[in-house]
């Protein structure tokens, strides 16, 4: 690895690791339990940053996809793919932690409100994106198709969000629930949430970095293999 990369790796990994450890400490020991919701509320400190990160990840996928179609360099494609995989992971975690929290607090595992439904659809788009890469033909085809999906998906997500929101709120008879109201009065709670954002962001960056390095090395190996093959075939 070049020295710059090694440096980044050396800094990111412990930073992310320490950040997460500290976050866990804060969530489980430091912060007081919510009065109304009890211990379950602590999931909130994981759930919200995860959610923000998964949408951020898709933003990265979208931008990288546009850049890839425009510039054509492998760098953008690898970045998009890495961000998509990490984003998918975070999205899955959001969809798992959410219902775990919701069941005791709202009394139901799932509602079809705008945020949940949009996240579910985001998950489906991530799944389609990753599948696209698996089933595509050789060469750049998979990368290009995935990039198209990334762009269309990103444009669509706000529209989906709006339409589901209207779907739920135009009929007042429907139960409209509000997610984790920010009844975060205790400054310790706010501090914990804020710190968790930072910790999860670091985790996100580190995971994308590692995955990206993996992709870069895979490309390099593939390049060497091609070189060797064509060299000998000449």
């Amino acid at each position, binding site marked *: 690895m070049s020295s710059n990369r090694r440096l980044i790796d050396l800094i990111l990994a412990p930073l992310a690791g320490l950040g997460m450890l500290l976050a866990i400490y804060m969530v489980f020991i430091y912060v007081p339990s919510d009065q109304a919701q009890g211990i379950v509320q602590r999931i909130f400190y994981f759930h919200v940053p995860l959610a923000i990160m998964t949408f951020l990840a898709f933003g990265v996928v979208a931008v990288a996809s546009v850049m890839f179609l425009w510039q054509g360099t492998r760098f953008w494609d690898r970045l998009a793919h890495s961000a998509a995989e990490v984003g998918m992971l975070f999205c899955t975690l959001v969809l798992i932690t959410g219902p775990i929290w919701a069941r005791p607090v709202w009394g139901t595992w799932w509602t079809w409100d705008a945020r949940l439904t949009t996240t579910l659809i985001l998950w489906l*788009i991530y799944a389609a994106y990753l599948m696209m890469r698996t089933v595509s033909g050789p060469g750049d085809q998979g990368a290009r198709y995935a990039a*198209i999906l990334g762009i269309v998906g990103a444009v669509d997500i706000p529209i989906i969000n709006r*339409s589901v929101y209207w779907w739920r709120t135009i009929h007042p008879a429907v139960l409209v629930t509000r997610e984790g109201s920010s009844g975060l009065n205790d400054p310790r709670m706010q501090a914990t949430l804020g710190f968790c954002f930072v910790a999860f962001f670091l985790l996100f960056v580190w995971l994308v970095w590692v995955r990206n390095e993996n992709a870069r090395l895979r490309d390099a190996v593939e390049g060497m293999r091609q070189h060797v093959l064509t060299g000998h075939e000449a």
Partner: protein
Amino acid sequence: MLALLRKDLQIEFRTKETLASLLLLGLLTLVVLSFAFDPASELRTEAAPGALWVAVIFAGVLGLNRSFLAERENECMQGLLLCPVDRGTIYLAKTLGNFTFMMVAQLMIVPIFVFFFNLPMTLGIGGVFLALALGVLGFAAVGTLFAAVAVRTRAREVMLPLLLLPLVVPIFIAGVKVTGQLLAGKPLADVAPWLNLMVGFDVIFLVVGWLVFEYAVEE
């Protein structure tokens, strides 16, 4: 572009294959969905708009697959790409072709839908067709783009619904809402926000598709 469109329409009206499949599949979906609800229950009327749009989507996915399947044979795709036209134009021609096929099928499906679900033949039907047209256009816009992509992957026909269904959720929601309200006798003005959403969706994705299509078909 008109020539391309004419080509697709000519091929279709000679064989009527796609049209027949669209019609039959739409019909079958309606029939099967009819079995999902007890004929006597209230649920039927409530679920009717949903049933119609599910039928539209299922039949639509099939029709879209076929539109590019034809191009795969005899290297037609290469021939198409050699035309001195902008790739975006090919996209628009294909989209309009798909849109036309689907709408023609809808002309026959909607009366049968009204018939099966025992709905009053109010003047709302005109509005329903408007909603269908807008919805089908949006569906065709996104669908044509991804059909071009899907038929060239290993998973072929399976990929298209996987890609398409999450993306057309706004169209589906809006379509069902509008259809439901119009059939219940509400005036068009009531459903205007939903129609606006559909128009917005159509415009946005026609533009995106037009811009991005060349990446979908380059070798």
